[in-house]
């Protein structure tokens, strides 16, 4: 009982710490540095403590201090309650969605079974979708309550975009669910031990569709229409400053991590290393004794999982710094007339193959 409690708390703290404490700030730095590398620049390297710049790693700290000391501005005529509530509503689902993503398999250590997922729900994917679609309320609320035409336009665009891409995204996943026959993410992860059974090989179209839709859900270039700064200033968060602004910003990064997590779990073999099964790993680590070997395997799997996540984040950032942005109507056309039929065709073909 107490072991279970400790395990649960440890897992929550681990995921929370990795996401909020490591990924969210470091991603800001990574984004700056990666864009700098792509654009022949040096990138952030000015913030320093006693002259040590740590290749710009102190910039997230400087940003946080700066934003904490900024005035928390609420425009005249704005609905104070909803204006304050909106960033929380956006941030919370982004944090929660990660709780059902397994970052490792099941391990037996000292007679205690450890399942490396915070909540092993049997409707894992549906849970993620439910919470991902909740974050749209924060966006719409923020845009509407700001009492600003630009914010309002941004909110309208965001709601249209997120609603229409959710449909295609949900349908893109169905193929995966059909192939693996489970909604439980730990099951799907466990079934991908064989390299050639990874989702990306069984569902290549679903993979591409999901990446496209997920980028749109996350509102990043080329789908950053709700916050297109040259058109509608900053879209739905035009009127936000201080920590509320950074909450929207963090929600975006957290969603990016969550998307990377989902892609890893569904398509990239979750915590498995290609061509190396858990048994091979166990025999490799057999020098450490039965329990020690299991712990080492567990750590290897966690490391593998997060390596894949980092790769997917890198991939998303490369897209973001390469492409221009769509126009509103073109994006809707892409969503409804191309991605949606494609995902339906994908489901049909998958069904046909499974039936035969």
């Amino acid at each position, binding site marked *: 009982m107490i072991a279970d409690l400790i395990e649960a708390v440890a897992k929550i703290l681990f995921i929370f710490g990795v996401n909020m404490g490591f990924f969210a700030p470091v991603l800001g730095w990574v984004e700056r540095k990666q864009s700098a590398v792509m654009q022949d620049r040096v990138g952030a390297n000015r913030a320093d403590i006693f002259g040590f710049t740590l290749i710009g790693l102190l910039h997230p700290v400087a940003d946080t201090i700066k934003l904490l000391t900024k005035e928390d501005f609420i425009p005249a005529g704005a609905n104070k309650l909803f204006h304050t509530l909106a960033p929380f509503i956006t941030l919370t689902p982004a944090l929660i969605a990660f709780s059902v993503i397994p970052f490792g398999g099941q391990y037996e250590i000292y007679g205690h079974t450890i399942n490396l997922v915070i909540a092993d729900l049997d409707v894992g994917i549906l849970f993620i979708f439910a919470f991902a679609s909740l974050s749209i309320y924060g966006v719409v609320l923020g845009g509407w309550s700001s009492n600003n035409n630009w914010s309002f336009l941004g909110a309208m665009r965001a709601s249209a975009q997120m609603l229409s891409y959710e449909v295609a995204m949900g349908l893109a996943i169905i193929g995966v669910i059909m192939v693996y026959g489970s909604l439980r993410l730990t099951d799907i992860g466990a079934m991908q031990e064989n390299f050639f059974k990874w989702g990306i090989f069984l569902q290549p179209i679903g993979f591409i569709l999901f990446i496209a839709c997920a980028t749109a859900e996350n509102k990043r270039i080329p789908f950053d229409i709700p916050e297109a700064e*040259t058109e509608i200033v900053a879209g739905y968060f035009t009127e936000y400053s201080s920590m509320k602004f950074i909450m929207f910003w963090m929600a975006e990064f957290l969603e990016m991590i969550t998307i990377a997590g989902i892609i890893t779990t569904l398509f990239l073999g979750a915590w498995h290393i290609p061509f190396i099964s858990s048994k091979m790993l166990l025999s490799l680590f057999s020098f450490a004794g039965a329990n020690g070997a299991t712990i080492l395997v567990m750590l290897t799997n966690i490391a593998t999982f997060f390596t894949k996540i980092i790769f997917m984040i890198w991939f998303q950032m490369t897209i973001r710094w*390469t492409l*221009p942005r769509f126009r*509103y109507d073109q994006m809707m056309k892409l969503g409804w007339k191309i991605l949606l039929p494609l995902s339906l065709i994908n489901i049909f073909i998958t069904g046909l193959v499974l039936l035969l």
Partner: protein
Amino acid sequence: MSYGLFLMSRVCNFMSDITKELHTEHMVINMGPSHPVTHGTVKFVVTLDGETIVNFEVEIGYLHRGFEKMCESGLWEQAFPYTDRLNYVSSMINNVGYALAVEKLIGIDTPERCKYIRVIVSELSRLSDHFTNVAASGLELGAFTAFLYFVEARDLIWDLLESICGARLTSNYVRIGGLKNDLPEGFKGHTARVFKRCRELWIDVDKLLTKNRIFLDRVRDVGIMSPDDAIAYGFTGPCLRASGVPYDVRKAQPYLVYDRMDFEIPIGEKGDNFDRYLVRMEEINQSMRIVEQALDNIPDGPINVDMPEYRWQSKDDIYTKIESVIFHFKTVVEGIKPPEGEVYFAVEGGNGELGFYLVSNGSGKPYKCRVRPPCFPLTAAMPKMVTGSLIADVVPTFDMINMIGGECDR
């Protein structure tokens, strides 16, 4: 049976409900004067129906400095620093244009070497203008990487300009009847190195944008101007050529030594933003060709005309010869005195025909100095180009007409 009828009537009611006209209102929003798309200060009052533009009004004048009045209150030579600030991305062309207008008024024919150098600096300025414009089009559509590639190219061009005149932006290099100084040593080699890198960057940006489906969708069939409309509005420069009218001042009324250069005028087919983009991309290549030809053929000789009443003589002469001192004193204190008369002279600026209309009453100051800014008619056509399209289309259209506040508002 009766239940079926009841259901039918309910459905009919429902259908009439959704087809009923909803009460909607137009939204009026101010884009600018400080809005990310209005680089250079300008304001659009946009009436929107949803996201569709119903009415579009342009308000200019936020950067009005009284250029023409300032020119009238200074000596003829003192207008050069003001011309730098017209189209500040290609200030050398403005210098050249003003100098040529005054020289036409006086009747000066500058030495060959001076003409070649003026062609070189004009084309370098055009390069900087087009690089900036194409780069900004990428930036505004979200392609930040393409933007920085061409900003690097522009920076290299500015290095060249800096080596010539010491300034990157406000050059103040050309003089009436000559130039401030000759080209620096090793300029040809420096140019060759810069152009090599610029061509690499050109290829990179071409790959990033020209065949990029998203970029194509954003700029193609947006902001179309037919040739007739374009002429009626007074378009010149790349925007007119994109509409398919092969008018370029450098070919139509060749000035300096452009008639000896081998270059082509790219023209578009439709007159949409994509054609404007392509025309500018090709003009970048043509400008580099012109500079290379000019550097190959440039003769040796003086850069200043030998007319001491209009152009200072060398400092050696001024310090040693009494006539030179007197001319120097007279031209500095009273200014040069062109004969009475009026003149219009146009050069091909970065955005189109940049014309100077000057009136002299025989005194040391211009009686009137009027500029024909190429981007004023272009800005005036904005409502025609964007009304009926989406608000997102304002972005590429306004970028491609390349309105420069300093030039438009003067």
